[in-house]
């Protein structure tokens, strides 16, 4: 049976609301935490999908922005909770525990970093791009390990979740709602972006870069803007992820995480709006159930992944709707 993509999308959103509500009624807070984890990973992958799905550039280092978002939250909250000042040279601040400020700072820091790194890495393409983004993320990974002031290899624990006006963020369902609303907002913006002149130009550039250049558009500028937006969204997800775990550590920068973000997109379907969301739900569910069955669940994840790459291109949405997704 073939179904329409928008029906699949609606079903996913409804499921994502229904599951935590059901868990709330049946008093299973852990399920709500799992759903929150899926929502945040989905957000990170939506960010990655802007450069990967729309731009056709396989960034294997998006954990970099995830980690930057996480450490932004960690550092700001650490200073606020220990009443120490964070001296940034130009100005000093006491940190903050106020979520919206943390989000804005995380996005700005990620965006600036994406701009600077993008200037360098976007000069390359193809395999070079894959390896260089990987290497940059690894550089930050090692930097975080050697940065003893914020926990070094052991990471940094934040004892209380940050504040959001009017809500008690330590109640799982309330924190879930914050993350879910952010995901919906970002998905809405992404849908608008896809059909905007910028999105169309980016799409065209992925298919034939020379043609885009001949009509007078600058591919470097397009790619750079996509990379910056992509990095900012993944950075925001990193800040939320750190708040969910109340812990940041260098593993947020790890190459495994970069790989998993790509895996999420592929499971769902490349270049599709809801691909990352479906992928994240399936990934978190697999992680939860398979790791309950066997200690070696990564073997099965690997086999499933191989199966998808070799036999089911277009991901789950592709299987359901009978159409292959945009190819990178």
């Amino acid at each position, binding site marked *: 049976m073939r179904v329409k993509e928008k029906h699949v999308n609606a079903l996913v959103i409804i499921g994502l609301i229904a599951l935590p509500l059901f868990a709330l009624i049946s008093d299973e807070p852990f399920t709500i935490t799992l759903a929150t984890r899926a929502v945040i990973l989905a957000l990170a992958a939506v960010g990655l999908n802007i450069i*990967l799905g729309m731009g056709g550039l*396989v960034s*294997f280092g998006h954990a970099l922005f995830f980690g930057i978002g996480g450490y932004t939250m960690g550092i700001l909250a650490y200073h606020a909770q220990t009443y120490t000042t964070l001296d940034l040279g130009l100005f000093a601040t006491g940190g903050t525990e106020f979520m919206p400020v943390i989000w804005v700072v995380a996005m700005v820091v990620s965006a600036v970093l994406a701009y600077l790194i993008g200037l*360098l890495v976007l*000069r*390359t393409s*193809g*395999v*070079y791009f*894959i*390896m*260089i983004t*990987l*290497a*940059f993320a*690894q*550089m930050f990974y*090692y*930097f975080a*390990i*050697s*940065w*003893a002031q914020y926990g070094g290899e052991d990471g940094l624990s934040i004892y209380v979740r940050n504040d959001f006006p009017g809500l008690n963020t330590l109640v799982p369902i309330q924190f879930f709602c914050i993350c879910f609303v952010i995901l919906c907002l970002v998905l809405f913006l992404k849908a608008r972006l896809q059909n905007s002149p910028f999105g169309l130009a980016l799409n065209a550039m992925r298919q034939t870069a020379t043609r885009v250049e001949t009509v007078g558009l600058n591919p470097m500028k397009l790619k750079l803007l996509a990379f910056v937006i992509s990095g900012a969204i993944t950075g925001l997800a990193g800040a939320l992820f750190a708040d969910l775990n109340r812990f940041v550590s260098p593993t947020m920068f790890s*190459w495994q995480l970069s*790989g998993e973000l*790509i*895996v999420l997109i*592929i499971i769902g379907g*490349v270049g599709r709006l809801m691909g990352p969301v479906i992928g994240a739900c399936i990934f978190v569910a697999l992680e939860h159930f398979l790791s309950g069955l066997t200690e*070696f*669940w*990564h*073997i099965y*994840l*690997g*086999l499933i*992944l*191989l199966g*998808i*790459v*070799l036999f089911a*291109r277009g991901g789950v949405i592709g299987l359901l709707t009978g159409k292959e997704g945009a*190819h*990178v």
Partner: protein
Amino acid sequence: MSSILVIEQILNGLQFGVMLFLMAAGLTLIFGVMGLINLAHGSLYMIGAFAAAAVAGATGSFFLALVAALVAAAVAGAIVEMVVIRRLYNAAHLDQVLATFALILIFSEGTRWVFGSFPLFLDIPNALSGPVTLPGGIQYPLYRLTLIAIGLAVALGLWLLIERTRIGIQIRAGENDREMIGALGVDISKLYTLVFALGAALAGLAGALVGAIQSVQVGMGEPVLILAFVVIVIGGIGSIRGAFIGALLVGLTDTLGGVFLPEIFKLFMDSGAAQKSGSALASMSIYLLMGMVLIWRPTGLFGARA
């Protein structure tokens, strides 16, 4: 800071560099000939180390352990090529990344399943243990010196293989025009399996040799894989000569940076802060090196002009 320390560290850097070359040579060869980005190369390194540790534990012979590492990695490489990799040559880079990422998961967990989570140990053979005295009165471990010699010998052998033999001609021709050499009667799929197994054997050899100075454990391959990526990005993807120069540059930068950057920082800040910022910068130094090379030459030192 004595000159003896400097020379010791240069030798350490060289040793690290030639071992990186063994990894990078296989990666760059596979990319050059088949156009494939192989993330699972680190797993082959791990397989070599585990095979060596297991055989050395059973027989006590380091030589047999090295043979086992070469054979195990080459066989694993050939099987993987025939079962999975072969389907990926015409696929997008994204599919290659994912499929080989999946292979890492399978290999790592499979190894953990067979050997457990605890690290194994591979001992340096008695004949090669202990220091030797080099000209100038420098005491240096014989085993590390042997690694440098083996690495240089493999580099020379690889150069001879590619420049002077019939197989080498086919490999070089395959890099330029795979359809043409197929039309000339070369069995491409056999050639590809051979190149993949050769790259795998080099990775397995590196794993076994390095395994004797570090511990043999699951996940040991990936940090080396990422360094090997840095090496071939610096050297230019597909170029063996680039991989050699890049590996030595990365090995020396990493080793010398870790020792001397904190010392240099001590010249203008207090000792504790210098130690911290020096080692933080040292851990990033090879990536900074890569960044500088890329600004100067986006396709690496010896890469084809894009």
